[in-house]
């Protein structure tokens, strides 16, 4: 791939972990949909913050406390610019995307949903966009409706109008964490708008890989997480329009999220701090800010182009080398999917596959990928999933193919 818009050899040097050996092999990391690796710039930003400016935020009256506050709010501004948000106050820091989606279901949902109110999700959701709604169904009695997934891995929108009839919420993933399917975000948001439903997007798999413009999407709320986009664990984001965030009561409560507390009650703080109870993940926010700078430096268009090309290479390599023995689930056209390849190898259980992979330093996830309803649609209890990112190249895909061949030999009947 001489036309790769990313200089992957140089990119790889930015990630210290890729220099290590595992079990006598170079590390072949193909699990970025699970969590991405971290570039030196992110590690340095976190260390520098702790070494030079560590203090609590929004309350200190001394220099380093001002620096810490500026670092946190600076990171918020960077994230806002990165996703095309109009204002930094629309960006709420959470622990991860799961907490962001829980905030939506439990804070907005409890305040606005009543018994029998339909909430529409899809069959390709991660458990984080399923279980909070199940809980709300038990608590409030909402009705949960599912947009089906077709055999091609795309959402089947044939019955969309009927499913959305009377709906109060449409909450869906912009990209499937199992199939890599890109969902028609604009079309779904427009459909939600027509019926007056809240439009919620789980963009956890999208934001790390493609240029994101939340304003263009026109949704109400967008959730994603930092650790899948070169940032540290422990920080996620809920972006929302001020109208919707203002109409959402606080989720967690305590310090930081209040303007005033008396014996009689409290007044919630302004956006976004109203949703950030307690000391926030300051160093993690700084790390996420550095991650956003790093990704912007590579260029999101270049990242997407690189991944489409590499996904195409992977699909061709597996098909040419293994034929029908290897089945890759999801859309067959690289432009319609992300670099997430869920696959099966004959009758070999994914857990056995990845055991053989591990011997060769190849890191691939096996299991249900926190999407059991989708696995049921696929008719599988588990798949192996290889996922690609900025630091992966054709050598990694070739190593995967070699590992598949080794597993196939080992378990040959």
């Amino acid at each position, binding site marked *: 791939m001489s036309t790769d818009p990313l200089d992957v050899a140089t990119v790889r040097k930015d990630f210290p972990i890729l220099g290590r050996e595992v079990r006598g092999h170079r590390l072949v990391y193909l699990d970025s949909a699970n969590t991405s690796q971290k570039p030196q710039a992110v590690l340095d930003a976190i260390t520098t913050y702790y070494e030079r400016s560590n203090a609590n935020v929004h309350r200190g009256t001394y220099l380093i406390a001002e620096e810490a506050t500026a670092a946190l709010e600076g990171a918020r501004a960077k994230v806002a610019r990165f996703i095309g948000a109009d204002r930094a106050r629309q960006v709420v820091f959470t622990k991860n995307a799961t907490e962001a989606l829980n905030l939506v279901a439990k804070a907005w949902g409890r305040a606005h949903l009543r018994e029998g109110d339909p909430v529409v999700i899809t069959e390709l959701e991660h458990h984080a966009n399923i279980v909070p709604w199940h809980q709300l169904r038990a608590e409030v009695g909402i009705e949960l409706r599912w947009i089906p997934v077709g055999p091609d891995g795309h959402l089947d929108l044939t019955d969309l109008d009927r499913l959305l009839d009377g709906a109060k919420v449409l909450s869906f993933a912009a990209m499937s964490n199992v199939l890599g399917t890109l969902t028609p975000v604009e079309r779904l948001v427009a459909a939600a708008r027509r019926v007056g439903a809240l439009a919620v997007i789980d963009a956890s798999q999208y934001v790390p890989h493609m240029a994101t413009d939340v304003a263009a999407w026109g949704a109400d709320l967008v959730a994603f997480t930092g650790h899948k986009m070169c940032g540290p664990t422990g920080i996620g984001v809920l972006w929302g329009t001020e109208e919707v965030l203002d109409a959402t009561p606080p989720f967690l409560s305590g310090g930081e999220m209040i303007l005033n507390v008396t014996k009689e009650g409290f007044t919630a703080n302004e956006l976004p701090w109203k949703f950030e109870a307690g000391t926030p993940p300051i160093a993690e926010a700084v790390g996420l800010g550095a991650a956003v700078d790093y990704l912007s430096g590579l260029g999101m268009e270049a990242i997407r182009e690189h991944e489409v090309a590499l996904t195409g290479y992977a699909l061709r390599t597996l098909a040419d080398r293994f034929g029908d023995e290897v089945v890759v689930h999801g859309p067959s056209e690289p432009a319609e999917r992300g670099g997430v390849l869920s696959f099966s190898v004959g009758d070999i*259980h994914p*857990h*056995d596959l990845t*055991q*053989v992979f591990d011997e060769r330093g190849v890191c691939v996830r096996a299991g249900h990928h926190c999407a059991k309803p989708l696995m049921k649609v696929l008719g599988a*209890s*588990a798949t192996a999933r290889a996922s690609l990112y900025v630091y992966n190249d054709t050598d990694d895909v070739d190593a995967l193919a070699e590992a598949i061949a080794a597993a196939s030999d*080992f*378990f040959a009947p």
Partner: protein
Amino acid sequence: MPGLEDLYREIILDHYRSPRNRGELEVPPATRTEGFNPLCGDEVVVYVQMDGDQLDEIRIAGQGCSISQSSASMMSAAVKGRTRAEIEELTRAFKAMMSIHESTLEGGEEVEVEAPTADLGDLAALQGVVKFPVRIKCATLSWNTLAEALGGDRDDRAEAE
């Protein structure tokens, strides 16, 4: 460094490819108990038919990796025709074999584990699993499910890893 051969002994692969006592039993008189491994989505279903104190018939359904399937297959062969007390003893011996590594993980040192009194037979082939900590749950899934079927408590230590 433990190799694949330590994990995938020939007898394990044999049970995986030709599982014993595979199928279902009529409920009732048999009981049906499900077990799940949340890590990998494996699912085992244990059908048990008791004759008084004795396990008369056992069938295994569900799906899973070679370790969980072969462990279930070997277990079914080992417990068939045994009494409740004998099965409990066998379960203890199997768990002891599996928990050696958990103890060393916690304590950092080899911990003396009570020597199993029951003869594990083929099941001893699963000894290698302890060198692969994430796979212990695969090996114990069917045993925990059987314990539940027999009315005992599930051993949550193995689940909680």
